[in-house]
């Protein structure tokens, strides 16, 4: 919809533009042979078939998915705020239109994911209450502030880029409704990531203050974006976390560390193309490994923000709760009206059948 005449459209900028995504989407299209496997959970998993809402599944599997899909949905909804903050201030009408469409997409992703969670036997209302009460989390990345226009670029490029890297493997998740949601979400996120890159591309080819704005945003978002993949879960760290069980269930397909490395490998050349310096003195190409080496992530900061002591934790939930509370009378009115309408229709039908 929004053309891009600057950047080579054939060159993949994110994981949803790679063969891995195409393979996952194609895999979904071509699934067959479910009938020969039968309905047993383990047999379905072993045959790389999807678990569907009516299939029997272990309670822990169900609970894990509810938690993960809800957290993902909440992230979309809370994630509307940092960029929504810039809709009224976007510096050109084209940028304003793209930004409104993006925040709208995020709302749509949230609804889509809440629906996927609802197939597991919980409703959106309850999930929202858990979010508002702090019982369920959203991605910690949204607890960082959007201080300048360039942050809209950095979020698209880095945050959406990291999210897509996480989500492309989820297109092959064992739970059918989640996998299908991810195939669609990744496609749209891919546009967002490209638009974010383009924002920074233009800034880096602009005035000195625009370049400084872009560099400042990259400095602030690089490390939080790397932390988005979650704490280390390979080597000594492999025990104790969720990774092992989630992999056995076919929910997770790659470790946090693998995905983080893939993201770094994909993103560093893009930073070079943009002309941005990533804020890591240890960043260098390792010929032997065939990967980019990078420095230590500040996991103390990660846990601190996750526990609620980040720059915007209170603000995000407060904003969400306020909008929800201010809209309570509207939702009540809609329900009351629907009830009245249903009663009127029943009455009408009774009249007609009596006549």
């Amino acid at each position, binding site marked *: 919809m929004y053309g891009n005449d600057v950047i080579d459209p054939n060159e993949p900028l994110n994981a949803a533009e790679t063969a891995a995504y195409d393979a996952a989407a194609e895999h979904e299209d071509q699934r067959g042979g479910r009938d020969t496997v039968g309905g047993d959970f383990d047999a379905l998993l072993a045959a790389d078939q999807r678990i569907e809402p009516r299939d029997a599944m272990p309670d822990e599997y169900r609970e894990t998915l509810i938690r993960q899909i809800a957290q993902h949905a909440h992230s979309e*909804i809370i994630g509307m705020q940092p960029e929504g903050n810039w809709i009224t201030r976007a510096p*050109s009408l084209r940028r304003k239109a793209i930004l409104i469409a993006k925040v709208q997409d995020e*709302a749509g992703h949230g609804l889509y994911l809440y629906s996927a969670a609802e197939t597991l036997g919980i409703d959106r209302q309850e999930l929202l209450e858990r979010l508002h009460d702090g019982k369920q989390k959203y991605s910690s990345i949204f607890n960082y502030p959007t201080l300048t226009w360039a942050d809209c670029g950095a979020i698209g490029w880095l945050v959406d880029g990291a999210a897509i890297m996480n989500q492309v493997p989820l297109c092959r998740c064992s739970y059918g409704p989640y996998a299908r949601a991810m195939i669609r979400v990744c496609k749209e996120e891919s546009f967002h990531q490209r638009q974010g890159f383009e924002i920074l591309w233009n*800034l880096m080819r602009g005035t000195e203050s625009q370049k400084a704005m872009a560099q400042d945003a990259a400095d602030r978002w690089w490390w939080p974006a790397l932390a988005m993949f979650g704490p280390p879960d390979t080597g000594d760290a492999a025990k104790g976390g969720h990774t092992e069980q989630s992999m056995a269930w076919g929910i997770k397909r790659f470790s946090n560390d693998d995905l983080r490395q893939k993201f770094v490998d994909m993103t560093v050349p893009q930073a070079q193309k943009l002309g941005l310096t990533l804020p890591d003195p240890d960043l260098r190409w390792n010929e032997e490994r065939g990967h980019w080496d990078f420095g230590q992530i500040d996991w103390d900061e990660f846990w601190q923000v996750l526990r609620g002591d980040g720059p915007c934790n209170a603000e995000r939930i407060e904003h969400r709760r306020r909008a929800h509370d201010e*809209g309570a*009378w509207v939702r009540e009115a809609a329900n009351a009206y629907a009830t009245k309408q249903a009663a009127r229709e029943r009455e009408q039908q009774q009249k007609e059948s009596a006549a």
Partner: protein
Amino acid sequence: MSTSASSPSTDTGTTPVTEPVTGAVSSASESAHRESLPGAAENTGAAPGAKPYAAYLLGLADDAMVYAQRLGEWMTNAPQIEEDMALGNIALDLLGQARGLYPYIGSIDGTGRGEDDYAMQRDEREWHNVHLVEQERGDFADEMARLLWFSAYQVELHTSLTGSGDDVVAGVAGKALKEVRYHLDHASLWVVRLGDGTAESHRRMQAALERVLPHLAELFDDDEASVLAADLEVGVLPSTLHDAVVARVAHVVEQGTLTLPDGSRWRSRGGRAGIHSRPMGSLLAEMQHIARSHPGATW
């Protein structure tokens, strides 16, 4: 008001949009914009001459632009997530209408300005929108009252403008008409739901219908620019839309068990001449400050 074809330069006396053509002013980006407009082909032949109805179109474009800006404020603040999306959609449509008109206005007012020149670089006195669209966001009932009136007005306006003697205007109106019909449906559904919902929602919706009242007369004022545009068979006299718009709104209000309030003791005026109410300055400050903080920058 006289319907004689007065010179547009005497219209408001405040805007540069009616300056005489000083030469063929046309930037590459502006040409690109024009080429993407429906019906633009007929208007790109010789050097574009000034057309006297630019001020009229600017009023229409500014209405759409400023209302898009206000509706954008709802995103993340709506009563439910579906409504964040719906109001975002409507904001996008209105933004699209403004973007369809601004570059064309730039090509006929002799200035060659592009869409961002109009949106980001004009001061308050140079904006021609009605006060209705610049008012601060109230509660959800206030927004639905405003949207009901404005979209009913836009349905009648664009229905009429599809027959405009200017092909570009007719093209923009044809596209807009499909959109504003949906806006009107959306507002109507909510006004009925809120009116016929709970006691609280009924009270709030009725109060909102009363609060919006002073800002409606301006939509139907035959100011000099619209008289001129109507004389040239490009525009429509706003007063001729009044009865049909009121009929549309009255029907919805009645369905919602609400009462259409009587006339207001006071009414807003002056928007088309660049005289605005207090919220307009803050709206522009917010909308324009990044663009204006970086003169000459592209984004």
